């Protein structure tokens, strides 16, 4: 389908033409991609049925299908929006200098941006476990060089750690793929969901794939690669990595659990994933509080925010299907909450990383202690950072608030109140680290700040626009989303009582 092909074609074209064309191609592809994503979402919204597409006319199991359901549509639109923002933001940092035909960083950045995008769309729409493996590798290969774009020793080391750990994860995923094929002779998710039986090979395969994927998602305690990688990359790349790339592997776990083996969901394992998520929230937030550099703080906050996503597993897998249908409703709430957290964190975190990038660019450093009075000079940027922070804290009105409120409601309604304690504590800790940045930033200083480089208001505007998107997500009503239900197995339409 076009959504994958356009950025892929972008990579090829940019590579061929090189030079100044790379940026133009990327931006053209970005706007085309946004239109395609919106068109797909609109189509699904209207028809209320998922779109399936058999590539080359070969139907699964022999051929490969792409499938667009509500989740894919939402993720594709989010991706397109964030990538467009990143593209506009990066125009200044990654333009080819005058007089040169082509320069390293711009060329690499723009091609990899599109490569990552192709990978992301392949992850959102892929319906075949092996295609998804290739898509994952596309993500990894696009993301790793972005980390080490500035070529300093510590970013090289961070990139290497990232690559090696991600490769271990992919190998485990691939092993799971092999086991699935060996047992059922197909890798199509929809076909598999009808075939899987409760037997050891499924458990081993799912466990291997899940473990491999959470290594790529950097869920605690497998987060070793994330802080240096996300903090070391250039701001535009950090935004991409933190907002979108880690979400790719997360969505894959969701696809495996809820789409491939929906009938075999195991509560004990789901509880374990959520427990790791809870640990990630506490751990990531506390460490974020202790960082001295802004970008590291944001990176650790990503670890914490990823933790919330894993509450989806116990909450949306509905342990007790009571007769009245109440549980179905609440799993729907958990679903919407979880996906909204996915989206709002993507938008908010992208805005925050880019805001941090602007601040670091202006000051020449990103030490939190040295931020005094930056709000006077870059008011829009600090405002955008604050708005993003609001979403992370879960303050109304923001996407983060609605997401966390829905997860809370589902947790309580399903009798898993212990997660609600963590969700609330996480919000408080998030407030702690956001205030740690805002307090010095808003403080009055006697000496006027001297900026190393002026920051264009256009780039500030892009960041602010993205942060406002995160805020507007807070207008989503507190009920299961209809769009998300498209292609879901959960009968969310049952109204409680």
């Amino acid at each position, binding site marked *: 389908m076009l959504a994958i092909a356009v950025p892929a074609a972008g990579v090829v074209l940019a590579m061929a033409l090189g030079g100044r064309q790379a940026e133009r191609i990327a931006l053209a592809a970005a706007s085309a991609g946004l239109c395609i994503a919106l068109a797909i979402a609109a189509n699904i919204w209207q028809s209320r049925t998922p779109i399936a597409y058999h590539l080359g006319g070969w139907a699964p199991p022999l051929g490969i299908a792409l499938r667009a359901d509500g989740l894919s549509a939402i993720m594709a639109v989010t991706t397109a929006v964030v990538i467009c923002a990143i593209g506009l933001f990066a125009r200044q940092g990654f333009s080819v200098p005058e007089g040169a035909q082509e320069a390293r960083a711009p060329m690499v950045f723009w091609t990899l941006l599109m490569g990552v995008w192709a990978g992301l769309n392949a992850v959102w729409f892929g319906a075949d476990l092996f295609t998804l493996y290739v898509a994952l590798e596309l993500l990894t*290969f696009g993301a790793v060089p972005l980390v080490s774009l500035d070529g300093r020793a510590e970013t090289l080391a961070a990139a290497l750690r990232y690559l090696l750990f991600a*490769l271990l994860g992919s190998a485990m995923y691939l092993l799971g793929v092999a086991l699935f094929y060996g047992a059922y002779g197909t890798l199509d998710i929809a076909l598999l969901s009808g075939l899987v039986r409760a037997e050891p090979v499924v458990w081993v395969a799912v466990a291997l794939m899940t473990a491999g994927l959470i290594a790529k998602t950097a869920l605690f305690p497998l987060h070793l690669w994330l802080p*240096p990688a996300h903090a070391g990359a250039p701001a535009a790349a950090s935004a991409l990595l933190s907002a979108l790339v880690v979400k790719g592997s997360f969505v894959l776990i969701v696809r495996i659990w809820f789409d491939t083996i929906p009938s075999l969901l195991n509560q004990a394992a789901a509880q374990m994933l959520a427990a790791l998520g809870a640990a990630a929230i506490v751990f990531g937030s506390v460490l974020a509080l202790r960082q001295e550099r802004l970008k590291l703080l944001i990176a650790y906050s990503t670890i914490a925010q990823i933790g919330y996503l894993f509450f989806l597993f116990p909450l949306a897998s509905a342990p007790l299907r009571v007769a009245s249908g109440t549980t179905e409703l609440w799993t729907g709430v958990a679903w919407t909450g979880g996906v909204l957290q996915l989206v709002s964190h993507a938008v908010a975190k992208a805005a925050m990383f880019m805001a941090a990038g602007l601040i670091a660019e202006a000051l020449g450093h990103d030490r939190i202690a040295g931020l005094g009075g930056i709000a006077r000079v870059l008011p829009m940027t600090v405002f955008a950072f604050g708005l993003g922070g609001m979403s992370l804290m879960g303050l109304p009105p923001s996407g983060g608030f609605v997401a966390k409120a829905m997860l809370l409601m589902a947790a309580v309604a399903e009798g898993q109140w212990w997660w609600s304690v963590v969700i609330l504590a996480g919000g408080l800790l998030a407030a702690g680290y956001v205030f740690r940045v805002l307090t010095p930033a808003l403080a009055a200083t006697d000496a006027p700040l001297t900026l190393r480089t002026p920051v264009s208001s256009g780039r500030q505007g892009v960041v602010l626009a993205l942060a406002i998107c995160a805020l507007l997500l807070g207008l989503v009503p507190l009920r299961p989303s209809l769009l998300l239900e498209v292609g879901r197995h959960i009968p969310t339409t049952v109204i409680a009582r």
Partner: protein
Amino acid sequence: MNAATLYGLCSAALVGLGLFGAIVHPQPLRKILAFNLLGGGVFLQFGVIARRGAAAGMGGDPVPQAMVITGIVVAFSATALAVTLLLRLYQVSGSATLSIETQSSSESDGGGR
């Protein structure tokens, strides 16, 4: 026991060895090697499945075989990227290690862009 089962056991051993090596070896290059062992084991698993699926006059199911070919190429690209990264790291910093302690010393004045 037939050949497929035999190589299946061989694949299991390779996976274990690869994982072990990737975890405990301090040198990144040896980790890359171990990763290739692990990859070999995983691919062999596909091969065993393909062999068991021999039918329609074919010696094995072609679908997993094709996947392995794709997989081998991906694994090679990964190895190439990792090796280049490693060499570049060595060139820039004079050391080739992934341990945190040695990194943190150089991280202290990191500015970031």
